[in-house]
């Protein structure tokens, strides 16, 4: 529909343009009338600007907008950290991932069955690491990497999974899917060309969804059954 209107507008503009080019007379509504129209329009714009500048700043985004390069670097760091995790390297984990939720379960059984339930968000990645002693406690931490949508940090919006211990069975319910919808009011490419990399390069228009996983720390002599990845084993 909007395309038809656009075509119609272009047709009218082109036809009027040709008409003006061929004519010998100027098109005019009369200076006084035009002054009123222009003055009124400018006044409306000025009032709208005052309203806009007094209302919209309440929704101002105070966070720094991540650039495509920054987001790419964060995504690479997360992928590398996950790869390192598989090979038992947990050194820089805290720098790249944040601990969103922690659990602690007293556990004195000999073996633990881990059940990963598949929700609308798939199956959670679970890593397990043996403690140096048998302290009768399972510690679980939900790690989540930074999520950026169009350069804006939405990590806090991500829900945590649910962990339920029933006897010797630990059930991991995947977090519910988060739906994020937003409108972004930006000044436009002329205003961002020299400050934020510019619109022409589509600098900010990319997204990174952070990797997430659960890290279990289990008593030394416990046996685990389930689809998990061991660290250092």
């Amino acid at each position, binding site marked *: 529909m*909007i395309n038809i209107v656009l075509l119609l*507008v272009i047709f009218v503009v082109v036809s009027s*343009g040709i008409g*003006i*080019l061929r*004519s*010998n007379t*100027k098109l*005019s509504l009369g*200076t006084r009338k*035009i002054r009123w*129209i*222009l003055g009124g329009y*400018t006044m409306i*714009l*000025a009032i*709208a*600007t005052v*309203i*806009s500048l007094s*209302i*919209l*700043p309440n*929704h101002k*985004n105070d966070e720094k907008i991540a650039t495509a390069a920054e987001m790419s670097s964060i995504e690479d760091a997360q992928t590398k950290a996950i790869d390192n995790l598989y090979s038992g390297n947990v050194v820089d984990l805290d720098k790249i991932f944040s601990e969103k939720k922690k659990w602690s379960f007293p556990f004195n059984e000999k073996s633990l069955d881990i059940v990963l339930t598949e929700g609308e*968000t*798939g199956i959670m990645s679970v890593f397990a690491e043996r403690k140096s002693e048998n302290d009768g406690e399972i510690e679980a931490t939900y790690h989540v990497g930074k*999520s950026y*949508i*169009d350069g*804006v940090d939405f990590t806090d*919006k*991500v829900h945590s999974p649910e962990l339920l211990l029933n006897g010797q069975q630990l059930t991991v319910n995947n*977090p519910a*899917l*988060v739906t*994020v*919808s*937003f*409108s*972004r*009011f*930006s*000044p*436009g*490419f*002329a*205003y*961002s*060309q*020299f*400050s934020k990399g*510019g*619109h*022409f*390069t589509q600098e900010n*228009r990319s*997204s990174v*969804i952070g990797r*997430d996983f659960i890290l279990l720390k289990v008593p030394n002599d416990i046996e685990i059954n389930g689809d998990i990845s061991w660290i250092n084993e």
Partner: protein
Amino acid sequence: MYLAEVKTWDIVKKQYRYKLKSYFGVFTSLIVIQLLAILFSFNGTGSGSGSSNSIQYDFYYYTSDIILIFMMIWAFITAIIITTRAYRYDDFSFVTNRVISQVSNILFLLSSSIFAGITVYLSTNLFQILAFYFKNNYSIIVDSLTVTEFIIGMITSILYIFLFASAGYLVGILIQLHKGFLLIIPTVLFGGLILDGIGGDPRVFENVTMFFGQETSFILFICKIAIVSSLLLLASLGISNRMEVRK
């Protein structure tokens, strides 16, 4: 020795003032085109969506991009219009020559570009406030501007509009030189774009856009616009000097 000694700059100023009043009508088309641009911007000037394991997202952009592009087109058309006979013959009310007439026209185009650049910012606020109240926004993120960003952005908008006005002025002068250009220019322009696109790897349009759009140094950007606009306007000046006084 003359009874009345006239200075060139005084006549330019008089003609410029006269043209500001006489060509006032072009601003009505500015309002109409700006309102149309607001209408087209209302559905958002860009959008994105995607999903992953944990997040499903969609977002809409509300920017001044469409309004600015429409203003560039307006400036291009306005510049062509003021080269038409109906407007050009107004100059003969004054003691004038081609250069004075052209300089006053350029000053008028510069003033129009400044006005258009300012109203681009103001009308963006109008449509953003309309979108804020009348669109179903789930949540809003507003990218604010620092004073420096605001000033640079405003000057950039004005320069983009003036660049198009300069190009339009040259096109207008060419058409007035020979009506055949009315056919040749669109053919070369659109034909070139089509031929460029047929190869599957359009370069010309992209390179021209990137020459200005990818410039990250504001000073260099000003230089680029100043040089290209000056070349276009000097060419117009050169061509108009070859035209008959009044036909």
